[in-house]
C-alpha cells in the first residue's frame, strides 16, 4: 500500500504541526477537530483556526505557504466520513485514554479497510490504547510519536505490536521515512518510549545536580550545553523552551508507569521555586518567560534557583567549558572544579541509566543513540558519548565514585560500544557481541563512508592565526561508489576559500583525467550546514592588511572554479542541507542539478556584509531570471526581480521557497529525509551521466544605466523611508551597476556572462575598498549579526553614491572589465556605434531645465 491521503484528528499544537508536515511532504490532509461549542456558525472553527495559526508560526510550519491548501479543515461530527478516503489516520487528541478510546472507535467505524490508524501519544503505552478495540483496528494500529515542532524535529518513534503485519509496519516506516522525511526509530512499548525516557531522566538529573551543587542557571547551561554536545540552550534554557508546565505532566505519566526501583522514580523531585514559577505563569518562552526572562527594559534576567528571585543574567565563565572547547568532552569531565564535577555527575548518571534500560526500550543501542540525536538534538548519542570518554574510563571513574556498574557497560569493558569492521559500522548487542548497523535502503551517509575509507584527496587542515584563533580550512574528496566523487568541505562552517576551490578543481581533474574511472561529482556536506559562504575572516584579514589583491585573487579563483563546474562535461550535483549562503548558494547556482534537502536555507546574502555575489552568483541568477517565462517582457522585470532578491539578501526558508526565488530550478529535486540526500544526489548524478547536455553560454540584453537609475530610484524611496541605510544605498548602487550590465549596456547591446562576471568583480572590489564594508564584515564575524548603519536624514541619496565613487576604489583603473567588454560583448550589427545615447560630448550640450525649488 502507498499512502497518498491522510487525516489528522486533533488540531492542537501537535496535530496541526503533523498535518503541516504531511502537507509539506505533498500529502492531502483532512484535519479534523471537535465542533467548536463557542462558534455555532462555523462548526469547523477549531481546525480552521489551527491552520490560520500554522500559517503564522515562527519558525514556519509550512515549507511553502501554498502547502496550506493541502490541509482541509473539518470537524469530527460532520466530516468524519472523509476518513474513508484516507490511507493513514493519525490521532493527536488530548492525552486521556478515555478520549482516545472513543475516537478510535469512531475512526474504526469510518475508515476504509486496511487504513493505518496511528496515535501520536507520548505517554500512553500501545497495549493500553488497544484495550477494548476491534481486532481489525488492532491489526492496523501503531504509535507514531512525533516531536515538537513536527517539521523541524527529525525523530519519529514508531511503536508497533504483534497484531501488525510486516506489510503494515513497512508501509508506515517507508511513509514516515521517505515521504514525511523523519528518522524512524523503532521503539519497544515501554513508558516514555526512548527519547523522553532518557531525556526526562537527563533533565531531572541536570536540575537536581545544579541545585545540589549550588550552580546558577547560567553556570549549569554553560556546561550542559555545547560542551556536552547538546543544544546551546542548555538545560534550563531547554526547559524554558519546552515549557515548565509540561514537565510535571510528563513526569507524572512516567511515575505512574515505572516501577519504584527505576532510576527516574528515585531521582524525581519537585522544587518549590519551580512550582511557584509555574503557578505564577512563568512557564517558559510561550508564557511570561521562565528561568530566563526579559524585564521591562528588555534586559535578560535569570532566576536564582535557591530563592526564586530574579536578577540580571550574566554569562557564566566555566573553566571546564573552556577546556572542552580545546580537548573535547573528556577534558570537560576531567576539569577539577564545580563545572567539571557537575558535568561528570550528570553524564555518569544519564549514561548509566541509559545502559541499564537500553535493551528494555529498544532493539539495539544504536536506536537509543539515534533517538537522542534526532529527538533531543544531541550531537552524540549516549553510547557514542561513552565511547568518546572511553568505556574503561567511565567504568573506572564510576568505581572510584562507588557506583554500581550497569551490566551492559560491564560487558563493554575493554572494548567500545561501536566498532568499524571491514569498513562497516557495528554496535554492541545485549550479549556483548557486535551486530552491523544496517541502514535502510536508499540511505547513504558520508559518515559511514568516512568510517570505512580514506579520502582520495584532502587538503583539510587547521590553521592557527594569531589574534584570530583556530580556523579549519580545506576540503576532501571521497569515493562514494559507482564512479561518483563527493567533495566535502572540511572548513569551519564549511566556508569557502582557496583550498576548497582547489579541491573542487582537483575532483574535476580526477574525473576528466581518470580514463572513465570517475563519472560524476556530488558536492555534499553532512553537517548542519552546506556552506555559510566565503571565509569572511580571511577577507577581513586581507583587507585590514591592505592586501586587496588576495581578495581579488580569491574572487577570480572562485569565478573560474564555479564556471568550470557549470560547463563541465560530467554531471555536477550539489546536495545541500541547512544553510547554503553566499558562496554556498553560488555553488548551487552553478551545479547542473541540485538535490536539496527540504530544509535547505539558500540565499545570496552578501549585501549583509556590504558585498555582492561575485563568484558568478549575480550572473547566474540574472541568467535564470531573463529566461523565466513567468516574468513580464522587457529588460527590467528580470533585473528588478534579481535586484530585490539580492539587495535585500533574501534567504529561502525551505527548498520549495528557494525555487520561488530561483536559487533552485523548478527541475531541481527535493529530498525530505536528510539521511537519503546523498543517495538521491548520487542516483541523480549517475542518471545524468548518460545524456548530460552541456550548458551553453547565455547572452542577454540588459537595460544599462537607465535601468540602474530606475533601481536607484526605488532604493532612494526606501532610504527616505528609513528602510535602507546610507550604506545600503551605496551597496545596492554597485549591485545595480552589475545587474543592468554596466555603463555600456542598453538596447541593442549583447552582454555576455563573462562580461557580467567581470562587472561582479569590479564592483565587488569597489565595495571591498570601502571601510564600511569591512565594518559590516567584522560585525558579522564577531556577533553573527549584520551591521546596520545609523539612520541618516536630510542627505540626498545621490550624494551618498557620488561620495562613495569619489572615495572608493576607482573602477576605471580596473582594466580587466574594459578588456573583457572589448573581447566578448558586442553591439547588434549597426553602422554607427558612436553618438548613440549620451556620450561625454553630447552630455555637455544638454541643458537641463532650471527648475526653481519651492
Amino acid at each position, binding site marked *: 500500500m502507498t499512502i497518498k491521503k491522510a487525516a489528522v484528528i486533533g488540531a492542537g499544537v501537535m496535530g496541526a504541526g503533523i498535518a503541516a508536515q504531511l502537507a509539506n511532504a505533498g500529502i492531502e490532509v483532512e484535519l479534523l477537530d471537535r465542533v467548536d461549542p463557542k462558534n455555532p456558525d462555523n462548526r469547523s472553527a477549531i481546525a480552521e483556526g489551527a491552520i490560520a495559526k500554522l500559517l503564522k508560526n515562527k519558525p514556519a510550519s509550512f515549507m511553502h505557504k501554498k502547502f496550506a491548501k493541502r490541509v482541509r479543515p473539518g470537524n469530527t461530527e460532520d466530516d468524519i466520513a472523509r476518513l474513508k478516503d484516507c490511507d493513514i489516520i493519525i490521532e493527536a487528541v488530548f492525552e486521556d485514554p478515555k478520549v482516545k478510546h472513543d475516537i478510535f472507535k469512531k475512526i474504526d467505524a469510518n475508515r476504509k479497510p486496511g487504513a493505518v490508524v496511528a496515535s501520536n501519544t507520548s505517554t500512553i503505552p500501545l497495549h493500553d490504547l488497544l484495550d477494548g478495540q476491534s481486532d481489525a483496528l488492532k491489526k492496523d494500529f501503531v504509535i507514531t510519536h512525533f516531536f515538537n515542532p513536527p517539521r523541524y524535529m527529525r525523530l519519529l518513534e514508531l511503536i508497533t505490536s504483534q497484531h501488525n503485519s510486516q506489510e503494515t509496519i513497512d508501509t508506515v516506516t517507508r511513509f514516515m521515512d521517505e515521504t514525511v522525511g523523519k528518522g524512524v526509530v523503532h521503539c519497544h512499548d515501554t513508558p516514555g518510549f526512548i527519547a523522553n525516557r532518557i531525556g526526562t531522566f537527563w533533565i531531572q538529573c541536570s536540575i537536581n545536580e545544579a541545585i545540589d551543587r549550588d550552580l546558577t542557571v547560567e553556570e549549569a547551561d554553560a556546561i550542559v550545553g555545547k560542551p556536552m554536545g547538546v543544544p546551546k540552550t542548555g538545560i534550563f534554557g531547554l526547559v524554558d523552551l519546552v515549557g515548565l508546565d509540561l514537565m510535571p505532566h510528563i513526569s507524572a505519566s512516567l511515575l505512574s508507569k515505572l516501577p519504584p526501583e527505576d532510576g527516574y522514580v528515585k531521582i524525581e523531585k519537585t522544587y518549590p521555586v519551580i512550582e511557584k514559577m509555574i503557578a505564577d505563569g512563568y512557564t517558559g518562552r510561550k508564557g511570561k518567560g521562565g528561568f530566563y526572562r526579559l524585564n521591562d527594559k528588555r534586559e535578560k534576567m535569570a532566576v536564582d534557583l535557591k530563592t526564586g528571585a530574579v536578577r540580571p543574567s550574566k554569562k557564566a565563565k566555566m573553566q571546564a567549558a573552556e577546556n572542552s572547547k580545546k580537548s573535547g568532552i573528556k577534558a570537560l569531565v576531567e576539569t577539577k572544579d564545580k563545572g567539571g564535577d557537575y558535568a561528570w555527575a550528570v553524564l555518569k548518571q544519564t549514561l548509566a541509566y541509559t545502559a541499564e534500560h537500553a535493551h528494555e526500550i529498544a532493539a539495539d543501542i544504536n536506536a537509543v543513540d539515534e533517538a537522542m540525536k534526532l529527538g533531543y538534538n544531541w550531537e552524540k548519542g549516549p553510547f557514542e558519548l561513552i565511547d568518546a570518554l572511553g568505556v574503561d574510563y567511565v567504568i573506572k571513574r564510576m568505581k572510584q565514585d562507588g557506583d554500581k556498574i550497569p551490566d551492559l557497560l560491564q560487558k563493554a569493558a575493554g572494548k567500545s560500544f561501536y566498532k568499524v569492521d571491514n569498513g562497516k559500522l557495528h554496535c554492541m548487542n545485549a550479549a556483548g557481541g557486535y551486530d552491523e548497523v544496517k541502514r535502510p535502503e536508499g540511505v547513504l551517509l558520508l559518515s559511514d563512508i568516512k568510517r570505512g575509507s580514506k579520502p582520495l584527496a584532502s587538503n583539510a587542515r587547521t590553521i592557527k592565526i594569531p589574534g584570530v584563533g583556530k580556523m579549519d580550512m580545506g576540503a576532501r574528496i571521497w569515493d562514494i561508489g559507482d564512479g561518483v566523487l563527493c567533495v566535502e568541505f572540511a572548513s569551519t562552517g564549511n566556508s569557502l576559500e582557496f583550498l576548497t576551490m582547489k579541491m573542487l578543481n582537483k575532483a574535476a581533474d580526477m574525473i576528466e583525467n581518470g580514463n572513465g574511472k570517475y563519472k560524476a561529482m556530488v558536492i555534499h556536506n553532512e553537517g548542519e550546514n552546506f556552506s555559510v559562504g566565503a571565509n569572511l575572516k580571511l577577507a577581513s584579514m586581507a583587507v585590514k592588511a591592505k592586501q586587496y589583491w588576495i581578495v581579488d585573487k580569491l574572487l577570480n579563483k572562485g569565478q573560474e572554479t564555479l564556471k568550470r563546474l557549470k560547463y563541465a562535461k560530467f554531471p555536477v550535483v550539489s546536495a545541500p542541507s541547512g544553510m547554503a549562503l553566499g558562496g554556498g548558494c553560488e555553488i548551487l547556482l552553478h551545479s547542473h542539478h541540485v538535490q536539496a534537502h527540504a530544509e535547505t536555507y539558500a540565499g545570496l546574502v552578501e549585501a549583509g556584509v556590504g558585498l555582492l555575489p561575485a563568484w558568478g552568483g549575480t550572473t547566474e541568477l540574472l541568467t535564470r531570471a531573463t529566461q523565466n517565462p513567468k516574468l*513580464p*517582457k*522587457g*529588460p*527590467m*522585470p528580470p533585473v528588478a526581480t534579481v535586484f530585490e532578491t539580492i539587495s535585500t539578501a533574501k534567504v529561502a526558508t525551505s527548498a520549495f521557497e528557494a525555487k520561488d526565488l530561483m536559487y533552485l530550478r523548478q527541475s531541481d529535486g527535493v529530498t525530505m529525509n536528510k539521511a537519503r540526500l546523498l543517495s538521491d544526489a548520487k542516483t541523480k548524478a549517475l542518471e545524468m551521466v548518460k545524456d548530460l547536455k552541456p550548458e551553453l553560454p547565455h547572452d542577454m540584453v540588459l*537595460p544599462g*544605466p*537607465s*535601468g*540602474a*537609475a*530606475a533601481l*536607484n*530610484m526605488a532604493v*532612494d*524611496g526606501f532610504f*527616505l*523611508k*528609513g528602510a535602507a541605510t546610507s550604506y545600503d544605498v551605496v551597496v545596492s548602487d554597485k549591485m545595480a551597476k552589475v545587474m543592468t550590465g554596466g555603463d555600456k549596456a542598453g538596447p541593442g547591446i549583447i552582454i555576455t556572462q563573462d562580461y557580467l562576471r567581470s562587472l561582479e568583480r569590479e564592483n565587488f572590489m569597489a565595495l571591498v575598498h570601502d571601510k564600511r564594508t569591512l565594518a559590516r564584515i567584522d560585525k558579522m564575524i564577531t556577533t553573527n549579526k549584520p551591521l546596520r548603519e545609523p*539612520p541618516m*536624514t536630510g542627505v*540626498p541619496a*545621490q550624494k551618498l553614491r557620488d561620495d562613495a565613487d569619489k572615495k572608493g576604489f576607482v573602477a576605471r583603473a580596473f582594466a580587466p572589465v574594459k578588456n573583457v567588454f572589448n573581447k566578448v560583448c558586442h553591439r547588434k550589427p549597426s553602422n554607427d556605434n558612436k553618438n548613440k545615447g*549620451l556620450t561625454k560630448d553630447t*552630455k555637455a550640450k*544638454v541643458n*537641463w*531645465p532650471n*527648475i*526653481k*525649488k*519651492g
Partner: protein
Amino acid sequence: MTESKKVVIAGYVRSPFTPAGKGELASVRPDDLVAQTVSGLVEKTGVDPKLIDDLKLGCAMPEGEQGLNMARLVVFEAGLPEEVGGVTINRFCGSSMQAIHDAAGAVSMGMSDAVICAGVESMTRVPMGGFNPQPNPELYKAVPGAYMGMGETAENVADKYKVTRKEQEEFSLKSQFKAAAAKKEGRFDNEIVPIKTPSGKIVSEDGCPRPDSTAEGLAKLKTAFKSDGSVTAGTSSPVTDGAAAVLVCSEEFALKHGLEILAEVKSFAVTGLDPTIMGMGPVPSTLKAMDKAGITMDDVAVVEMNEAFASQSIASQRELGIPEEKLNKDGGAIALGHPLGASGARITGKAAQLLHDDKSESEYAVSTMCIGQGQGIATVLKKYTPPAPSKKPAAAPATPKQ
C-alpha cells in the same frame, strides 16, 4: 470651420473602485474593465453608438495590458461600431481629464459631435512606473524632481505649507465619512456600472473605503515614505483598480438626441510647476481655468479635487480658499481610491453630476487635480440652462431623456 459650439457633459459613469492586488477587480484586465464601463455609459445615456466620433481614453501607464493604443481595442470590446476612433491619452493622473479637454476642443470647433471620454487604470496588473522603468540617469541626477516618488512630494508639500500630520488625518477621516454617508444614502448607485469578473462574479460596490477609520487608528500608522515625515498610508489615496467614462458632446447633439445634460464645459487649463511639490498643481491650474471662465471661487458651488494625498489637498484647498462644504461632497480619492488614469473623468463627471443636482445660486463647478512630474489640470463647468424656447422653436424635445 463653423462658429464655436457649446460643449456639454451628457453622462457619467464609473466602475466600482477596488484596492489593487487584493480587491475584487484585481482579476479583471483593464481593457475589459473600461470596455464594460463604456458600455455602461452608452446604455445609461441612451446615445446611439453610431453617432460617436471618438473614444478618448486616459491611462497613466499605457503598457502591458494597457498598451497597444488600448482605446481602439476598447472600441471593439465595448461593441462600438468600427467607425468610432480610439486614442489613448497620457498625462499621468490628469489623463482622462485631458481626454475631456481634448474632446471639448474638438466639439467646440465642430470637428466632433460626441466623444466618449474614459479613463482606466489597473494598478494591480500594470504597476505604477510600468514594467520597464528606464529613467534617464543624467536627468535623474540633474533634476531629481522629474522622477521623484509621489510620497516624497507629498512630504515636501506638508513641510513647505506646514500641514501637520493631525490635519492630514482629520482630512482623511472627513473623506472617509463623506464617502460612507454618500454610499449609505445611495448617491453612488447612479454612477456605478457593475463589472463582471472572469469568474462570473458581479462587482458593484467600492472596495477602498474604510468607514470605520478612527483618529486613534490613523495616529498609530507608520509614515509611509519618509522616516521623519508625516504622510501615512491613511493620509494617501490607495493604489486602486477602476475605470470611469463621461460623454462629451455639443449642446446641439444632446438636444437633438434627447440626452440628459449634466453641465456645460466652460473652460479648462493645465499648468506646470516645481515637480518636487507637484501636489500643489490644482492651485495654478484652477486659477488659470477660473480666469479663462471669468469667475472666482465665490461663483463656484462644487469643487471636486483629487485627493492624491491629504497634505496636498489641504494646502491646495487653503491656497484656493475652497470652503469646506463645497469640497468633495461625496468623499474623495483617499476614501474611494485613485486609479490614476480614471480619476480625472471620475471627478469631472462627479462635479457635473453634483452641479446638476445643486440647488444653490452659484453657477459653477471646478474639477482639478495634481499630476506627477509637476503639473496641474482643471476644468470649469457651468450649470446648464436650456436655450430659451423662443429662439429655437421646437428644434428638439424640451425635456431631455431621463
